[in-house]
């Protein structure tokens, strides 16, 4: 187990290192002087000079890379080109908005999608199963930015039930929660479909296993068989999917964040790319990658916790 963790963390670090290298080389692969690229075409020569010194642009490339890595390890991801504020602080302000959106979106998708998949699998080919099947494919097929726009138009513009844009007043949790509803709905909707389909498929497979027949032959209650036996095995592949989904959502919430003007990481990266604010792009992508890897690791550990066979093979 310890060895497994050490191995996994080592692998994670290798992936992050690779991402850093790619991000770093981006600056040099784009033709032109990195300082000009970083500051944009309208930068003054003084600004370029100042930037070059600060970014150690007079050092050899490998040295610059080492400096960047060293700084990143100590939590210093550079400074915003325009505001001069540390990137770490900017990301720190925004990360909460993204994480709350991801958790809320995936959370409601899990709460609805997993039971729906179970119901559909326990009663295959009934109307509930068919409706679930059609809805799953429907929600998967509709892109989340479309859902966002429609949700915004219906619930915010026409019905005026919920606020349209922003993330709520800072410090007011109730207001922030209300602002979270529409984006979370939009982000999670397709995941309801994914999870329902995934759970249904693996539940159907597990319900056909001999040990489920054994449980029935021992007279166990149907509820216990479905949730205590079948789901416990069937959920394992779904957990991997959820883990990857969490990771993916951290960066793919960008649509919802733009449409609902939420100050999250996705929107931050998007805005910084548009403004050629490269230190922020680098920092944002790095943090998103780190979170992705962390979530996948956690999902693997949850599987190990649930399945003794996996646990012992670690």
């Amino acid at each position: 187990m310890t060895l497994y963790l050490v191995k996994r963390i080592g692998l994670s670090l290798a992936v992050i290192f690779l991402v850093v290298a790619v991000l770093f080389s981006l600056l040099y692969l784009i033709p032109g002087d990195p300082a000009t690229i970083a500051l944009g075409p309208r930068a003054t020569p003084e600004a370029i000079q100042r930037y070059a010194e600060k970014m150690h642009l007079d050092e050899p490339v490998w040295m610059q890379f080492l400096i960047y890595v060293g700084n990143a390890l100590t939590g210093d991801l550079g400074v915003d080109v325009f505001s001069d504020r540390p990137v770490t602080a900017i990301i720190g302000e925004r990360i909460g908005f993204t994480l709350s959106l991801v958790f809320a979106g995936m959370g409601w998708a899990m709460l609805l999608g997993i039971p729906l998949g179970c119901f559909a699998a326990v009663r295959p080919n009934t109307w509930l199963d068919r409706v679930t099947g059609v809805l799953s494919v429907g929600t998967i097929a509709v892109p989340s930015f479309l859902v966002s726009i429609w949700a915004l138009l219906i619930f915010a513009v026409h019905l005026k039930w919920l606020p349209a844009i922003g993330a709520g007043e800072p410090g007011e949790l109730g207001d922030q929660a209300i602002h979270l509803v529409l984006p979370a709905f939009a982000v999670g909707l397709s995941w309801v479909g994914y999870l329902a389909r995934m759970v249904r498929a693996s539940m159907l497979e597990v319900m056909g296993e001999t040990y489920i027949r054994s449980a029935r032959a021992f007279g166990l209650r149907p509820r216990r068989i479905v949730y205590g036996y079948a789901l416990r095995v069937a959920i394992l592949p779904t957990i991997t999917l959820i883990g990857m989904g969490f990771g993916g959502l951290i960066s793919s919430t960008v649509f919802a964040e733009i449409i609902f003007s939420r100050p999250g990481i996705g929107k931050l990266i998007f805005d910084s790319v548009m403004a050629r604010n490269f230190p922020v792009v680098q920092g944002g992508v790095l943090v998103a990658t780190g979170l992705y890897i962390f979530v996948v690791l956690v999902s693997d550990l949850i599987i190990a916790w649930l399945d003794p066979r996996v646990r012992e093979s670690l």
Partner: protein
Amino acid sequence: MAKDLGPDAETLLDIRNLSVDFRTPRGRVQALRDISFPVRRGRIVGLVGESGSGKSTVLWSILGLLSGNAEVTAGEIMFDERDMLRLGEPGLRAARGEDISVVFQDPMTSQIPVLTYARQMFDILYRRPNLSASQKRRMAIEMMEKVGIPDPESRIDQYPHHFSGGMRQRAGIAMALLTGPKLLLADEPTTALDVTMEAQIIHLLQELQSDLDATIVLVSHNLGLIAELCDDVVVMYAGEIVEAGDVRSIFHDARHPYTRALLECDPARISDVSRKLPVIPGDIPDLTRQRHGCIFAPRCPRVEEGICRTTPPPDARTPGGHARCHLLEGPMRDPDWPPPHDVVTVGRGAIPKAASESTARDAPLLDVSDLNVRFRTLSALRARLRGMDDPFVDAVLDVSLSVRPGETVGLVGESGSGKTTLGRTVLNLLPAHDGSVRFEGREIRNMPEARFKPLRRDMAMMFQDPVGSLSPRKSVRALITEPLQIHNVTGVDLDAEAQRLAEMVRLPKPFLSRYPHELSGGQARRVGVARALALNPKLIIADEPTAGLDVSVQGEILNLMADLQAEHGLGYLIITHNLPVVRHVSDRLAIMYLGRVVEEGPAEAIFRAPLHPYTQALVDGVPQPDPDRRRTHVSITGEVPSLLNRPKGCDFATRCPYAQDRCRQEKPPHETRPDGRKHACLFPLN
């Protein structure tokens, strides 16, 4: 528990006129037709039949757990004055696990892998709210102790994969008996187990039955198991009962031609060793069609067209039993039927002349000497962290073996003995650590695939799983000629070749356009044989060639292999755990235990007088299809040790009834006797 209900309640379970249909895309399959038999308290009733006989359907009907497309069209199942068929789901659920419990066929798949035994057993006891958690735990531990699981206090908190196959089945029996059910159903309880484990489980069931005075319905295709355990026997064929009676009358005085044929086909029963086994020609009838008269008539050697098309009367001569055959009653009645015990009523075909004598002095086709195959158990890093110098296990240890042209060598061992690993290594599918494998004198061990490929034409493999080893998307024609295409054989007409091979394995021509899922087990086997023969090999390695086949069909495959051998002078290496079968077809046997050959020699001599105690245990472990030869003791106890901690001395010392101190200290070397028999035992038996 049975005694206090009074003598008038002697019948616990009474199945009357049960008929069950399955709705399938091919039409309605009449899986059971008019099944009636009683089960008396305290008796063990055996339901015996081949696949498709409907014996499992009877079992699941009792519990109301038939699959969704099943429909009970008639009958009643009276259990304790209730009709199980009209009980409804809540009533059935109350009865399942409490009044009627089940021991399942395959303990590897019938126990949920992610819950501990403690959890699984608590769950079964959920209907006992007046018991505290610690009382339930104590009950579970006591039951595990009763079924012979050592150290139950700690093992109860383990998961199924921590248990070996035999221990899992013991746990399965403990779970079934936990609630003290009135009726125990056992569905092929030993089929998934090795011979020595099977013997132990049979013994356990015998003990428990006399202890608890339990009533058991045992479903099996294994005649030996039925003879060993049962008081009454019901013989089923294609959804009908053809004969029923007490165990002695069935095994000693079978009166239905099917029962008779089934007993004659069992290789464990046939005492005269012959290359040819008796078979029942034909296939089980198509149950979607309406049938008239005797169900067995199309395959019966005594069939008479007119009379056998009418339903035979039930003839009740033995107490409580009956047989349905026109030979016993009416115009066809034959006073000489059934013939005496030693007369064989079913054919076995011409016996080919033994090829082995003429070729005994030939140079060996395959010569394996001192072969070692090792598997890594831990990565190099982990091994170092745990301070292990040698993170390997010896799956095959110092094995020497040879196969001559025209000779059949049986490689016998239980699961984990390394027999399949050896087969794969010979075919260069696994790398060997050291030793040598010679094919026609040429060293082939670890030969690079590019150089080895031409040799593959001379060595063919028959795989264990006949259907699984065939690509489901290819027709039989394509499958049979696949080896020719792999080896780029040009200048042959593939269609003609496919027909030639199909003819050779007696597969009718229309089958060439079929796909694997449309084949029966025996037909799929024949496709496997045809594939193995496609390139005219000299050596065939057959991995469990009869596994999963019914007794009436396995003879066909073995006879076919014998004919082909006589015709082409093939050498066979047959890898199997099935001793009765291998006895008939092998010239020589090699017995493997924990990766080592413990005994090797002529098959007939090994069966007559085994040298190694393990061989003796294997020979004694086969349940005999004769109720008068029931065993009273288990000749071998314990379990196969893990390869990870191979015993210091003789590998078998931990289980050997004759083991002495020396056996636990030194590894016995291979010794060759003057008569050519080899063994690895310090104190050989004979």
